[in-house]
């Protein structure tokens, strides 16, 4: 499927995943069939990070990814039948997903693996590196809200452009996971991990803010973007990743088109600098639009003049 001598971490991950989930063979063959060298190098780097985070429980990650694909099929069926996400309130998501540590661990493990098994997730990380991190001015005070598995935050620690690093999450357990992941990936820089609800954010000033796969978990995403606008310096840059038509057990806010995401960012007082739309399974964008398929929508923005 891939040349394991050139991409050893990816090769090892593929072998492990297929030993536990052999039914995924044809999908993964298609997923990497047209991948160019740059994409494979990125997938190999992400695989190495996943391997470091997993340490001695890689098999658990593979099992949980397999479980997650089943969960997502169930959510997809609901979405296709009803045209909406199953949940619409944070209270429901908390009751059915967030309070269950066993469920949450499986869910987070499965999502971690998806960073390399899903085209759109791998491409999103590539875009984040090249179009956001590599274009930050030096000495940026960097904030990530909702760092999750810590991959994006790790990449921020690897650039000198980020002078200071802060991450906020509403969940103490999630912050513990992020801290452990950063340690497993070998981060030695100081990263402030603080427990805050975005709606009760303290005063602060940041030059770069990352808000990746959080908007869809909120009942009032526009309000959250307004908060980020206040926290971002006038010359600062915002990175947003929000999925469109992407049912999941804890997704609340349904964006039906990439343009809805872009418009919301603009409405919150930002000028959009760059966008990328990466459809699920690597299908062409036109097909994704025609059939209301999932599209990872990425936006880099700066504060509007006078906003």
């Amino acid at each position, binding site marked *: 499927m891939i040349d394991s001598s050139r991409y050893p971490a990816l090769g090892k991950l593929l072998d492990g995943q297929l030993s536990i989930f052999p039914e995924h063979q*044809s*999908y993964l063959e*298609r997923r990497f069939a047209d991948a160019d060298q740059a994409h494979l190098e990125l997938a190999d780097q992400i695989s190495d990070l996943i391997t470091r985070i997993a340490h001695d429980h890689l098999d658990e990650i593979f099992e949980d990814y397999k479980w997650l*694909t089943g969960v997502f*099929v*169930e959510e*997809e*069926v609901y979405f*296709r*039948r009803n045209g909406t996400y199953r949940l619409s309130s944070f209270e429901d998501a908390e009751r059915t997903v967030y309070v269950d540590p066993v469920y949450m661990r499986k869910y987070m493990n499965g999502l971690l693996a998806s960073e390399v098994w899903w085209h759109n997730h791998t491409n999103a990380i590539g875009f984040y590196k090249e179009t956001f991190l590599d274009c930050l001015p030096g000495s940026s005070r960097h904030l990530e809200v909702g760092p999750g598995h810590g991959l994006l935050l790790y990449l921020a620690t690897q650039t000198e452009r980020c002078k200071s690093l802060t991450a906020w999450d509403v969940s103490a357990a999630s912050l513990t996971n992020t801290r452990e992941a950063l340690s497993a990936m070998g981060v030695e820089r100081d990263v402030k991990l603080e427990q805050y609800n975005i709606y009760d954010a303290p005063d602060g000033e940041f030059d770069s803010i990352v808000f990746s796969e959080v908007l869809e978990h909120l009942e009032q995403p526009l309000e959250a973007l307004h908060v980020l606008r206040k926290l971002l310096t006038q010359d600062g840059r915002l990175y947003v990743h929000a999925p469109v038509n992407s049912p999941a057990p804890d997704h609340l806010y349904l964006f039906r088109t990439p343009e809805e995401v872009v418009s919301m960012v603009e409405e919150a007082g930002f000028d959009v600098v760059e966008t990328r739309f990466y459809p*699920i*399974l690597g*299908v062409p964008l036109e*097909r994704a639009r025609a*059939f209301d*398929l999932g599209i990872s929508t990425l936006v880099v923005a700066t504060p509007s003049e006078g906003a």
Partner: protein
Amino acid sequence: MNRIGILAQLEGLIRDLFDEYQGPVTEDLSAHDVEQWDSLGNVQFVVLIEKTMDVRFSTEEMASLSNLGELMTLIERKKSL
């Protein structure tokens, strides 16, 4: 609706949904023959059938069908209930 009519309806859905597939649509056709017929495509296909033919499938039924012929038999059974 007879079996020929069901197959004709399914062919219409397949041609729309899996538009890259140019081969014949017969009772032997399966997801292995159609590149776009992946797990997500399968959900889309089955829910489209539900909406156009007024039937309902369980998740287990969705996952267990091995070819169009089996799907047609299941539709016939559900329509006759």
